[in-house]
């Protein structure tokens, strides 16, 4: 029997989820800041940061899309045991997990409606690394300008152009994560 699916959850869920959420809140409210999280471990290739976000934000009420590369039996078993989120197509997902390339194209993901812009997907993007350089970010949560090593520029400019509709992003590398809400203006750095 596979036991990998049974390990890697929070040891003390209320407390560790509260810390995970504060990291997620700070990252999304201050684009460009990089938070470090701990306490969760999912089967490869899921990063620690992505595992913390999954445990903190997802449950049986949140359809989850697994992009190719992350959609495997080990990851599905882990999610089924710890989270219980139904695995869904891109068009129905509230959350999505994968590398930037594997998540493309973004068009099928929900961007909300003009009356309910909150009914949109949040994507957990797995990255090789995460640095405070590269794309220049301005907008809510940023005093003057911030920099973040985004996988590309044009997709986030198009996302911002649709504001208040749009998709929200977390970038995960190892145990570090950063957020990019739809409200952020992105330029080449």
């Amino acid at each position: 029997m596979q036991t990998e699916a049974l390990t890697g959850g929070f040891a003390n869920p209320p407390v560790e989820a509260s810390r995970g959420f504060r990291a997620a809140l700070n990252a999304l409210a201050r684009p460009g800041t990089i938070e470090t999280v701990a306490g969760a471990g999912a089967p490869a290739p899921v990063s620690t940061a992505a595992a913390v976000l999954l445990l903190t934000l997802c449950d049986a009420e949140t359809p989850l899309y697994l992009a190719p590369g992350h959609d495997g039996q080990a990851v599905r078993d882990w999610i089924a045991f710890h989270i219980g989120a139904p695995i869904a197509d891109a068009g129905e997902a509230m959350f999505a997990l994968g590398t930037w390339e594997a998540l493309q194209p973004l068009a099928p993901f929900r961007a909300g409606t003009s009356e309910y812009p909150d009914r949109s997907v949040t994507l957990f993007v797995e990255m090789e690394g995460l640095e405070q350089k590269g794309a220049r970010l301005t907008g809510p949560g940023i005093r003057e300008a911030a920099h973040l090593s985004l996988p590309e520029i044009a997709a986030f400019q198009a996302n911002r152009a649709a504001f208040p509709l749009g998709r929200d992003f977390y970038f995960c590398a190892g145990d570090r994560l950063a957020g990019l809400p739809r409200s952020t203006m992105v330029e080449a750095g």
Partner: protein
Amino acid sequence: MSDYNFAYLDEQTKRMIRRAILKGVAVPGYQVPFASREMPMPYGWGTGGVQVSAACLTPEDTLKVIDQGADDTTNAVSIRKFFEKTAEVATTEHTGEATVIQTRHRIPEEPLTEDQILVYQVPIPEPLRFLEPRETETRKMHALEEYGLMHVKLYEDISRHGEIATSYAYPVKVEGRYVMDPSPIPKFDNPKLEMAAIQLFGAGREQRIYAIPPYTQVVSLDFEDYPFVASKANHACALCGAGDTYLDEVIVDDEGGRMYVCSDTDYCSGRQDKGHRGEMAAPYMEVAE
């Protein structure tokens, strides 16, 4: 060991509230619907703020709760005790020491920092509600960015009273998109809405959460010839002498006598500790044993 789950709410409820908070942060000023729970206090006593605070608190936090600026009124004391019991977090009355501040109808006088979260208790989150009672219509008005009605309301203020008479819950436009009710804070506090801290708004009965991320543009609605004025009573604090704080008017006898004191009790006592004295202050402070 507490008999309660950490911060009272069950984990699934907290996840639902946390998801709503994050969408609120992503769309500043937009009211995110959420499945508000019954709390062990009546609606109108800050159930929305309490749920948002419960979803945000970590064991490392220090919580401050204020009601109209005061740390020592019933609502503030009972919510502070609620979280002392259910989350076992440290509490404080000092603005500078707090990491999470739950507030009813005031922003502290002391500027907040990047390490702080300000949680507002909100009675009616919809700024257009008294102009248009139907939720289906106000939702459409927000979707279409159709805010003419709000300007008509402010114009009617001017035609009736000669000035914009709205003095609290003064509507703002967030990041050039959504018109938002900043909760019934006095309009004196409106300029402070552009701050370094994260601001979260919870309306329990009305089941809405919204947010203003740090350094977000927040503009109080006005007209070129009737610009917004952050007004206050034209007095200095009778206890600490501050001339730049929001004041409460206190009736002191039945012959029309009154005094004006800072509504922010922590700020006022901090100034008195530094030796500032207003015209009605005690000449010396009693030394606590």
